């Protein structure tokens, strides 16, 4: 009997302790899980949101940015803003929308200089090497130049004019006698500053700056271009290869 009363006294205490401990652990675990799910969901950046120059690739950026807003303060053009809760980009991270205020590409890159954590990479010293995104003609049907008109605005405002955007002259098949000056973006020179998208005269821009991961292709590592290898080597890659004359279509009688 004595034994049993002792057990009766002990068990509830022990049970309460175990229950309370489990409850605490479960509560903390639920907090962590909820936070992780929310964080995982906020990892993708909306396609119209661009990171400041020098930003690490998005996954690394999210591990490095402490959401302090110092880059926003450093920006002289109020281009950058911090994301609000549930506004698209991960809450508190800096971004800009090209159509609203594009990046003016300051030569001293103050936003990168002020970043305390390295989320904006200080190895970026030449703003021309920034890759915030890449411009894409998203609407060939509405682009005025592609209709044969001379708008040229995206080309004219481009800070890397004639490198990032060139005008390629082609034949205007609609009229049969005019030219089309097609704006062509060269991703190897485009910084993604967004001035072209900002300046597009259409209500819905025909040229938009998209995140690199979405809009820029990448050459496979193992691909070699014969003509480039030949230039690098400075000689024929396969010596003694006979170059036969090209066969041209026979002249019609």
């Amino acid at each position: 009997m004595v034994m049993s009363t002792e057990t009766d006294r002990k068990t509830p205490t022990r049970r309460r302790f175990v229950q309370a401990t489990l409850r605490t652990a479960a509560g903390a675990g639920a907090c962590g899980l909820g936070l992780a799910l929310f964080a995982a969901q906020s990892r993708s950046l909306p396609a119209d949101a661009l990171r400041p120059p020098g930003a690490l690739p998005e996954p690394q950026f999210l591990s490095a940015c402490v959401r302090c807003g110092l880059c926003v303060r450093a920006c002289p053009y109020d281009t950058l803003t911090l994301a609000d809760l549930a506004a698209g980009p991960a809450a508190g991270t800096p971004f800009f929308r090209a159509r609203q205020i594009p990046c003016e590409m300051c030569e001293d890159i103050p936003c990168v200089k002020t970043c305390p954590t390295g989320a904006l990479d200080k190895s970026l010293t030449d703003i021309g090497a920034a890759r915030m995104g890449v411009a894409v003609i998203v609407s060939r049907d509405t682009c005025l130049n592609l209709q044969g008109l001379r708008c040229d605005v995206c080309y004219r405002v481009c800070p890397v004019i004639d490198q990032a955007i060139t005008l390629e002259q082609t034949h205007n098949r609609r009229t049969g006698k005019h030219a089309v000056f097609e704006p062509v973006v060269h991703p190897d020179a485009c910084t993604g500053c967004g001035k072209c998208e900002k300046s597009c005269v259409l209500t819905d821009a025909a040229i938009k700056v998209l995140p690199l991961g979405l809009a820029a292709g990448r050459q496979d590592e193992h691909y070699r271009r014969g003509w480039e290898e030949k230039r690098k080597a400075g000689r024929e890659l396969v010596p003694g290869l006979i170059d036969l004359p090209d066969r041209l279509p026979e002249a019609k009688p």
Partner: protein
Amino acid sequence: MTARIQARIAGREAWALHGWWTAHKYLILRRLTQLGVLALFLSGPLAGVWIAKGTLAASLTFDALPLTDPFVVLQSLAARHWPETTALTGVAIVAGFYLVFGGRTFCAWVCPVNPVTDLAAWMRRRLGVEKGFSMRRETRWLVALAVLAAAAATGTVAWEMINPVTLIYRAALFGTLAGLAVVVAVFVFDLVVARDGWCGHVCPIGTAYALIGKATLLRVSARGRARCDDCLDCFAVCPESHVIAPALRGRDGAGPVIASGDCTACGRCVDVCPERVFAFTHRFDTRVDAAVPPPPPAAGRSAPAALEKA
């Protein structure tokens, strides 16, 4: 019941005995520092006078002094990013400062959530809300670990998305007002779910400062504990009331200094004590005032004695 009646009038006697200022001194000073720190950040966007830039997560004062929150950097490390020297220097300065000036003094003197949870606690006392859901003290350590695990699992500085400390600063400085919803949730949680629930049991930012507080120099001492007449006013106002008992009762030869890292050094116990038992000092101060006038016949630790006085 008695404790609840007691809680509603905590500090009244100190006010009557020592005047309004003495009974509210540290409360007012804390509100002034909290507003003052925010003002250092706000003067730039509001008046064009740039003193401190950034938020409490990371800041730059006079374009020279970098400060970084330790737990924010811990998350970044958990997410496998090694921050640049500026951020690490900022953490060293902050950690060094709070190793001298009291660990969770950040919570009581700087953090903008403190007025919110203080308001919830005050309303609880005035409305006589039951203590409610009680969380174990270890909860804060487990939550901090869970948050770091979430940062590691997602590779993001996850807590900064919902951290009310920086959400308030971002809302005030950068206009991201939707984040204030989290602050409202924290207020409701403290008011109706758990007493001193957020700051005392959940917030991992405070947990990091509690860790620093385990070794910090600045402390509150119950050096006048011989004068204590068990009115329980200090227990009623203290947001971490478990820290008081060992120093105040001095059981098992405990010294008069409140040693727990959980103490926020808010000084509210110093304010409300009618017997002026508490004082700010350093952690190696072992002085205890002698009991000069013997207090009225010892009433043990029962509340009725306190009720009579009230």
